[in-house]
């Protein structure tokens, strides 16, 4: 049985978001010490996991409800803007779920027979030379984007909101972290492949600042499937 079939079964149960194919390619990590990676074609959810999607999940797995989740798996801000364990903020059913930790995001995807995308997969899906300026503008704008999914733009593969709505967890978010230790004054540019690539720099910086139980107001996720 092929993976999409497995997904279809899980998806039918949970009514989760559609997966779309993303072409493979070569990902050159931002940090010089890391070898470039060949990425096979894979499937990625069309948009980020929404509050509504997430509600279905916590109903089936009550141990991930706000009042039940162990502190080791999520910090105090977990699902902070939810009204209670089973009530997402009203009017935001189709907004991406944020303030979720890596542990819980990972559990969500596993539950569907899926996985969090790797850094390489995510960066490949989100690669965009055309939108650098807009992306930088979003990174620079303060505050939280209060908008539902599918409200920014889609890539050629039809994948929405990879930039401009929220940050997203990746499976190996901490894989680049050791290099950050040398980050002082200008020297943090020392290990970078392309020092003028400010948008990658920022994502790299964000990933390095996270721990698996952290939850952040601007940080959500979507799931992927390897073919």
């Amino acid at each position, binding site marked *: 049985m092929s993976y999409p079939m497995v997904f279809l079964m899980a998806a039918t149960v949970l009514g989760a978001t559609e997966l779309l194919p993303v072409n493979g390619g070569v990902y050159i990590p931002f940090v010089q010490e890391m070898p470039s990676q060949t990425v096979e074609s894979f499937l990625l959810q069309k948009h980020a996991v929404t509050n509504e999607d997430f509600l279905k999940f916590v109903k089936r797995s009550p141990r991930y409800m706000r009042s039940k989740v162990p502190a080791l798996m999520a910090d105090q801000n977990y699902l902070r803007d939810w009204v209670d364990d089973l009530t997402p903020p009203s009017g935001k059913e189709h907004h991406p779920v944020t303030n979720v930790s890596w542990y819980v995001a990972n559990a969500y995807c596993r539950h569907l027979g899926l996985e969090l995308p790797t850094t390489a997969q995510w960066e490949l899906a989100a690669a965009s030379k055309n939108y650098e300026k807009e992306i930088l503008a979003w990174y620079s704008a303060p505050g939280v984007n209060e908008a539902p999914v599918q409200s920014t733009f889609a890539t050629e593969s039809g994948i929405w909101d990879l930039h401009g709505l929220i940050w997203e967890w990746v499976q190996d978010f901490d894989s680049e972290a050791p290099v950050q230790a040398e980050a*002082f*004054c200008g020297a*943090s*540019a020392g290990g970078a492949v392309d020092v003028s690539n*400010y948008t990658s720099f920022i994502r790299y910086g*964000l990933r390095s600042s996270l721990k698996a139980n952290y939850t*952040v107001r601007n940080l959500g996720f979507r799931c992927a499937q390897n073919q």
Partner: protein
Amino acid sequence: MKLGHIVLALALLPMSWTQDKMPIEEATLTYAPNVPPAIKRDHPARVQVKMTTIEKVSRLADGVEYTFWTFGGAVPGPMIRVREGDIIDFMLSNHPDSKVPHNIDLHAATGPGGGAAASLTAPGHTSKFSFKVINPGLYVYHCATAPVGMHVANGMYGLILVEPKFGLPPVDREFYIMQSEFYTVGRNGERGLQPLSMEKAIDERPDYVVFNGSVGALMGDNAIEAKTGEKIRMYLGNGGPNLISSFHVIGEIFDDVYGEGGTMISQKNVQTTLIPAGGSAMVTFRTEVPGNYVLVDHSITRAFNKGAVGILKVEGEPDLEVYSGKISNTVYHPEGGTIQSMPIGKTPEKVALSPAKVLEHGKEIYETSCQACHQAGGKGIPGVFPPLAKSDWLMADLNRSIRVVTNGLSGEIVVNGVKYNSVMPVLHLSDEDVAAVMSYVRQNFGNNAKDMVTVEQVVKAKSE
């Protein structure tokens, strides 16, 4: 024997302040231009410093907004003051609404990254780390999160003063002033919310060079103030990210300069001192004569065109021996007091010029004597140099406007609804030149006078 005991006791004394016996206190943080109070302690302490990084939109210049990334909601961030030997317990929180992580690299800390790696903080989180301040001096702190250039260009820097064990010489007033530059997509003065221009930052072509985070932060009502006869110390920092400052106070001489923010007086009697990017300087001077003193980066187009000006307003009794003001204005004759006519030739007769020629001459004077401040087309610089273009102030009262040029002008005025409180120096022009330039500005730049200003009018206005 006895002596030996005393020596031993003295030697042990400093060691009695072990880490856990150290008194604990919270640092008083101040926003520029204010400086935290001098430290009275004669022993080290554990000092708690709490700061929050906040990303927010605020004013960069009149009509121009910018998304600042800040320590404590301000540019520059709060000033910290501690004592050599203190242990700093630093708590850095990143506001939950922040888009990106931040950290802090304190140049006062010794160890890799100056705290940067230990303090990388995701939005909505807090990092704690400790360090001992071993070296006294005035140090810059800044965010060092990748990409550093962007975090610093957006405003993430401030100063930490580590007082030497025996303190600094007492002064009457202290100020905290930090220069930095901003790179905006729109050109200087272009209105609206201006995004950071990465290209300009990389090329080091800033549109704004400012003191304390925005154009006019030390002008008008925000001018710093002192009295005559006071000793002033300025803690000067330069956040950069790129430019080196040639810091100068027009009309003052620094009595002492602590070069590069070190603890030794490196030079006395200095006109202009350098502040390196990511570095500092301390200067002290005594105020003698009342008046407005203009702070500038003497890389002078930064002051005239990009915003690097501020005002120190000194109040008190004038001291005519130190500075007389203008005593008299007489004609200079190389040969002495009496006019000696040349043996050959006649004194040339004054030829009346046509209005067109006078206006042409007025234009030249405008370009050589006025344009540096009032700008091409008389458009001025908002908040710094008032416009002459369509100026209601200029056109309202001819005599008054003539006196601005002949006698100078200071104090608050309102031009086209905008307040200015600055100094225009006396310009040493002949009466003919004043008549010509006044004729020119009153008939150009959207001002619609039809008449010429005559030399007689200038002479009369001056003497009023």
